[in-house]
């Protein structure tokens, strides 16, 4: 714990500041030992155990050895500790008993008596022995005897009070040992003495302190006592303890001051309340300021004196403890505290005196710290010292203001007097700083001496402080000092220097949203800018201030008036225009379009109502408000159509702008809002969308570094855009608060118009809103006239009247009187019209504007619909009824018959399902606006589908027609009719349809078995056919003569929708078909007989099956084929029969098929017998008997099926194969010729089988059943449950 600076050792009473140890006895001896002793004593530390539970400490002891004198011993009541001898040592090297008895004993006794008289018990007798002396006197008593004698005589029970030091000046181990023992003893005794004496002192001190409430108690006296203790600790280099003593004194004093303030005054304190006459600051260069100490001792110190002294001591100790940063911190506290205490004690202080004192003290502390630290240390601890710098700056500033050094004209006489008084209070410079050039004293004196010197010093200090604050990141503090500097510059009439500081500070406040500082700083800035003549900036700041609600109404009006004055001044002499940002002047709140979808056709009127919130305190007459509009032609024409309008922009046409004054004032204005635009990129080839995205158009504004962003006060970004398209509104008065302004414009060119800027002109001042965001656009479109025809229902049905809606979108075309739509009539489509046909005219926004009746004139070729008059961009809607005449679908036994085109076209459709046949009707319409015709295609569905079938009963023939309703509608049917188109007189078609009294009773239990009636036309029988249902009609075919091989029939049926009256006569539904080969040639009859002798057939027993094939007619035309063999009059044909039981009820035994030769003669019968066995019991249906024509293989022109086809066809269905064969012959020939090679290759030409057309063979046993009883010995009973 070596103090860092040697010269700082306190000097008190010319003595060295070490504990005093007196030496009595042989002075020469001591002198010889002293060098070793003083060197050895502090070498080793000793543990000092303390009273009152204080922590023990290791301590290096040093002593000041002085010759013993009685005066040194403290008198009773003397509290001085520094001069207190802690140990008394008596030195002797006597080894002669004689000598001891003669002189030494008396001498020691006398010494002891003096000590006893002063009640000092800390003593030690040292006997030095040397071998040299022993040698000389060998006859003397053993050396211990002298020591023993001394111990015996003086050290009553305290034998340790006498020590022996052997050969102290020799260099032997024995000497070393003896020295060590001695030193330890010495140290122990010294510490014992310290403990005892200091303890006693502290007790006394405490007692004194406890008396502080007594009237006569004096703080100064007590101060001196406790400081004594501090000195001792300092002497022992226990700086911490010493500091504690001063801190206790400090706290005690502070408490008294506080109590005084609370009315509990101590008498002694009144002395400190004497007015301040000297303010020469702290003195920290001397370890002890004796001058002030004496003042305290003599109880003449003022409060500042006491505080200064106390702090100087604390400072000294802290620097010993190497805690300089605590010094700076405590210094600031002290200075603040002193100012407060003087205020509290109501001490009269001349104005400026304290400022001087604080200023000097700050600099003194700073210089003191600089004196004991290197540069790097100081730089890294700026945060500790910057407070003092700032405080000094502040104080110098107030001194400057006080002494008139800041004013433009310099100090007046009063100021000068004050300065002189202040300087007088400083007194003369202390000697210790007299040589220092930069001493605080000199600085202050110089600063107060002239305006220039003050400015220099003040600027130095300010800049230093700002720099320091900035370097440690205390930006706000730096800005505040900068603002003071700005104030200073303003006073000095140099606003150009002030401006930058004000701007910086303002930027900071704005960024952090501190309203009051913003307002205040802005006000200062306005003044500065006014002085600088920065008209634009000044007006901008004024507008901000005029809208600032933190200012008083009068101030706001003043700034508003400033703007108006300027605007009016310039009116007379038109010069430059001043462009200001609008956000402080007025805010755009809402914008409302009318029409609300912001879409207007060419020539239409658009009005835009904007809501402006004027921030000015008074009404402002605005000459013009203009909105510049950016025009762009959109390539996307879709956007311009009226259709787009209905799909997009569902808003109510009001666009709200974000509130700039949100929760945090001024925050949003600090950075610009995002300006986002949609972006579409289309491929150049097919105009398909490649990419889409959002573009921020002001990235450069947003991503800019915060520091470099230009100040708000300079509206540098505000530029006026020149555009050809401007919306204007003149002579508007903007009242404070909400104003509504309406712009009207006539749409001219089609395209998109984007509102970009808003500019408000007041005289020559223009307030500009540089960007309107969110983006506001309106569109102007131009549209071609259009005609749209669409059915009212999902699909149109042919044959009945259907409604079709016509929509005429006029677009730019105005429909004049006489304009009409010319519809060229299609053959199969009628346009029906009624007198009450009305057209409705809608406006552009789908509002109904008028209604007019429709004039329709029809000629043979053309139907003309005269349109009602309608202005441009309107819509006319009307409905017409159309009737498509259904064509006659035909069908027949074979497709050889002519099919009509549409049917063939739709064949595939029909195959896919029960789809309706469609008819396309095309209408060409001539529109008045175009020279070209518009072709409209309408698709009609035929609601019905008819099928026919031929039914036989023996030789009798019936024709059945099935009509299926495919539509969703129900119909009423009547007048079913079937006629033979061949009109052969021998033929008669007799309807077998049930005769119903009323149409609605026609419905029988099974809807599928509905039978229509065919009555004469005079009585109408109506039949309902519901959606997706069928109706069947049957006719018997009667003939008188031989029948033609084929029959052409035409079926017709009247129908009309069930829901409507049959007000109009509709064309009946017709169906043509052809039946062929319908005459029955053979009758096949099968009979099963039970085995002989049994009544019934039994399972498992063979029964006989008799098949009889009977020819019913003579040779007919149809028989003439290759199977026929003719010999004379006798004709035979070859037939193949086949018994098949598909249901596996029967087992056919033996041959199940065979070829027979059949005479072609009426009633010729062929019988075949075979055995069948029933496999099951019960009523079993007869097995099927099939009959085919057997065509020999050698037939000349016949086509052959190869083996594969044969097998294949056999597998599928012989019937079908044969059925197909005829109608597909042309196709088959292709495939057979293709496979001819393979046929030959196989070398086996096969005979062919050809089934009879369905009408030619009548199976009279179809559907017959025979009872089979189970055989008795059946073990297995099979029960199948289905």
């Amino acid at each position, binding site marked *: 714990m070596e103090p860092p600076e040697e010269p700082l050792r306190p000097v008190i009473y010319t003595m060295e500041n070490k504990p005093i140890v007196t030496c009595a006895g042989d002075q020469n001896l001591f002198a010889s030992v002293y060098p070793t002793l003083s060197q050895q004593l502090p070498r080793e530390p000793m543990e000092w155990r303390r009273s009152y539970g204080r922590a023990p400490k290791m301590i290096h002891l040093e002593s000041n050895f002085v010759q013993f004198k009685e005066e040194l011993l403290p008198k009773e009541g003397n509290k001085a500790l520094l001069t207190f001898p802690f140990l008394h040592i008596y030195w002797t090297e006597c080894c002669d008993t004689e000598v001891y008895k003669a002189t030494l004993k008396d001498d020691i006794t006398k010494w002891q008596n003096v000590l006893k008289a002063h009640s000092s018990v800390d003593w030690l007798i040292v006997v030095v022995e040397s071998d040299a002396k022993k040698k000389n006197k060998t006859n003397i008593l053993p050396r211990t005897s002298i020591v023993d004698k001394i111990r015996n005589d003086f050290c009553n029970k305290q034998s340790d009070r006498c020590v022996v030091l052997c050969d102290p000046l020799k260099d032997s181990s024995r000497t070393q040992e003896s020295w060590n023992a001695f030193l330890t003893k010495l140290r122990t005794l010294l510490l014992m003495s310290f403990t005892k004496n200091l303890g006693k002192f502290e007790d006394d001190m405490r007692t004194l302190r406890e008396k502080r409430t007594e009237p006569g108690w004096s703080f100064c006296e007590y101060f001196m006592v406790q400081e004594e203790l501090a000195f001792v600790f300092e002497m022992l280099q226990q700086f911490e303890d010493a500091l504690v003593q001063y801190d206790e004194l400090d706290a005690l004093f502070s408490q008294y001051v506080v109590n005084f303030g609370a009315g509990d005054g101590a008498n002694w304190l009144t002395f400190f309340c004497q007015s301040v006459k000297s303010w020469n600051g702290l003195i920290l260069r001397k370890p002890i300021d004796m001058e002030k100490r004496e003042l305290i001792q003599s109880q003449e110190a003022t409060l500042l004196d006491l505080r200064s002294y106390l702090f100087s001591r604390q400072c000294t100790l802290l620097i010993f403890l190497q805690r300089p940063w605590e010094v700076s911190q405590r210094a600031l506290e002290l200075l603040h505290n002193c100012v407060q205490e003087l205020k509290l004690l109501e001490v009269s202080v001349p104005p400026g005196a304290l400022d001087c004192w604080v200023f000097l003290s700050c600099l003194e502390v700073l210089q003191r710290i600089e004196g004991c630290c290197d540069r790097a240390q100081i730089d890294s601890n700026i945060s500790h010292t910057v407070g003092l710098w700032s405080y000094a700056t502040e104080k110098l500033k107030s001194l400057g203001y006080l002494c008139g050094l800041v004013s433009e004209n310099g100090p007046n006489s009063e100021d000068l007097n004050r300065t002189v008084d202040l300087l007088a209070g400083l007194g003369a410079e202390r000697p210790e700083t007299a040589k220092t050039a930069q001493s605080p004293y000199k600085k202050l004196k110089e600063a107060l001496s002239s305006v220039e010197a003050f400015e220099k010093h003040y600027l130095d200090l300010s800049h230093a402080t700002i720099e320091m604050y900035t370097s440690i990141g205390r930006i706000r503090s730096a800005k505040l000092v900068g603002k003071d500097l700005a104030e200073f510059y303003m006073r000095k009439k140099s606003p150009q220097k002030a401006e930058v500081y004000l701007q910086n500070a303002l930027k900071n406040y704005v960024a952090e949203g501190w309203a009051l500082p913003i307002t205040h700083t802005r006000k200062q800035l306005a003044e500065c800018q006014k002085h600088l003549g920065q008209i634009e900036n000044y007006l901008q700041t004024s507008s901000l201030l005029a809208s600032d609600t933190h200012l008083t109404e009068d101030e706001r009006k003043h700034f508003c008036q400033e703007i108006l004055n300027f605007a009016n001044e310039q009116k007379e002499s038109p010069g430059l225009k001043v462009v200001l940002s609008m956000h402080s002047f007025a805010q755009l709140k809402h914008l409302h379009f009318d029409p609300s979808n912001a879409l207007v056709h060419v020539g239409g009127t658009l009005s835009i109502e904007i809501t402006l919130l004027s921030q000015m305190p008074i009404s402002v007459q605005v000459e013009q408000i203009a909105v510049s509009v950016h025009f762009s032609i959109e390539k996307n024409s879709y956007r311009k159509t009226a259709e787009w309008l209905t799909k997009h922009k569902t808003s109510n046409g009001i666009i709200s702008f974000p509130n700039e004054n949100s929760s*945090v004032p001024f925050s949003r204005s600090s950075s610009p809002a995002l300006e986002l635009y949609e972006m579409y990129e289309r491929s150049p080839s097919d105009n398909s969308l490649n990419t889409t995205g959002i573009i921020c158009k002001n990235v450069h504004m947003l991503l800019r570094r915060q520091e470099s962003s230009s100040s708000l006060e300079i509206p540098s970004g505000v530029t006026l855009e020149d555009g050809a398209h401007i919306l204007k509104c003149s002579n508007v008065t903007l009242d404070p608060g909400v104003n509504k302004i309406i712009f009207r414009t006539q749409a001219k060119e089609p395209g998109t118009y984007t509102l970009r800027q808003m500019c408000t002109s007041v005289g020559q001042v223009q307030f500009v809103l540089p960007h309107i965001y969110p983006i506001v656009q309106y569109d102007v479109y131009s549209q071609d006239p259009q005609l749209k025809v669409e059915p009212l229902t999902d699909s149109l049905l042919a044959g009945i009247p259907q409604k079709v809606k016509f929509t005429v979108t006029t677009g730019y075309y105005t429909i004049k009187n006489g304009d009409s739509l010319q519809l060229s009539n299609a053959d199969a489509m009628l346009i029906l019209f009624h007198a009450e046909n009305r057209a409705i005219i809608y406006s552009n926004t789908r509002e109904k504007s008028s209604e007019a009746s429709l004039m329709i004139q029809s000629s043979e070729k053309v139907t003309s619909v005269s349109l009602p008059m309608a202005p441009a961009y309107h819509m006319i809607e009307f409905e017409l009824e159309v009737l498509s005449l259904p064509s006659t679908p035909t069908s027949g036994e074979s497709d050889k018959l002519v099919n009509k085109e549409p049917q063939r076209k739709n064949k595939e459709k029909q195959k896919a399902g029960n789809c309706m046949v469609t008819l396309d009707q095309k209408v060409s319409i001539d529109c008045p606006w175009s020279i070209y015709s518009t072709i409209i295609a309408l698709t009609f569905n035929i609601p019905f589908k008819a099928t026919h079938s031929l039914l036989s009963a023996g030789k009798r023939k019936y024709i059945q027609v099935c009509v299926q309703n495919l539509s969703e509608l129900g119909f009423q049917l009547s007048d079913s009719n079937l006629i033979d188109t061949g009109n052969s007189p021998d033929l008669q078609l007799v309807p077998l349809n049930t005769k119903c009294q009323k149409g609605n009773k026609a419905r029988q239990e099974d809807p599928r078995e509905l039978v229509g009636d065919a009555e004469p036309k005079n009585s109408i029988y109506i039949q309902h056919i519901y959606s997706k249902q069928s109706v069947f009609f049957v006719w018997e075919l009667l003939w008188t003569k031989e029948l033609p091989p084929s029959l052409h029939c035409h079926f017709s049926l009247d129908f009309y929708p069930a829901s409507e009256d049959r007000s109009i006569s509709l064309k009946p539904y017709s169906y043509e078909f052809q039946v062929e080969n319908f005459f029955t040639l053979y009758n096949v009859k099968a009979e099963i007989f039970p085995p002989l002798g049994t009544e019934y057939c039994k399972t498992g027993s063979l029964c006989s099956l008799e098949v009889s094939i009977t020819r019913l007619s003579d040779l007919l035309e149809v028989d003439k084929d290759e199977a026929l063999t003719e010999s004379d009059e006798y004709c035979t044909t070859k037939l193949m029969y086949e018994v098949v039981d598909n249901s596996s009820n029967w087992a056919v035994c033996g041959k199940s098929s065979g070829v027979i030769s059949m005479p072609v003669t009426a009633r010729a019968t062929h019988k075949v017998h075979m055995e069948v066995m029933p496999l099951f019991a019960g009523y079993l249906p007869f097995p099927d008997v099939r009959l085919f024509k057997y065509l020999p293989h050698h037939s000349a022109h016949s086509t052959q099926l190869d083996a594969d086809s044969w097998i294949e066809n056999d597998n599928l269905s012989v019937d079908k194969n044969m059925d197909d064969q005829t109608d597909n012959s042309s196709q088959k020939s292709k495939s057979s010729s293709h496979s001819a090679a393979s046929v030959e290759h196989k070398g086996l030409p096969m005979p062919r089988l050809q089934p009879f057309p369905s009408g030619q063979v009548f199976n009279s046993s179809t559907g017959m059943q025979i009872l089979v009883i189970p055989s008795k010995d059946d073990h297995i009973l099979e029960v199948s449950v289905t």
Partner: protein
Amino acid sequence: MRKKNKNKNNKNLNASWLKPYSLLQNYPLYIRSIPAEQELKFHYTVHTSLDVVDEKVSAMGKALVDQRELYLGLLYPTEDYKVYGYVTNSKVKFVMVVDSSNTALRDNEIRSMFRKLHNSYTDVMCNPFYNPGDRIHSRAFDNMVTSMMVQVC
């Protein structure tokens, strides 16, 4: 005559969703002062004190001291006022400026006042109609601050 001024600054670390375009910090949420004439001075003082708050908060982060200690203690003394600071875990700052002649206010009193403020602020935040980051216009909070100021003066 004793004066006291309270202030809150929200260092809005999580407020970026509120003000995405201005990374705003340290703006006042609530300022109250008596007497009102000195208000401007208090605003400057409190604003400047944020320097020290920032310093202390960042030092706290480095030292990883007990996170529950929200009281920052005396920020700095001035000639006339003592400025105390407090910062919540969400970095909402409370600053209290007290007349330095008011010796009745020791550290403990200040600390408990801050705790009271914090509690009241939490109540404000619990109000579903309060938008975090907005200025505080709560009568309950007002009353609490008033009562605290009256009590001290």
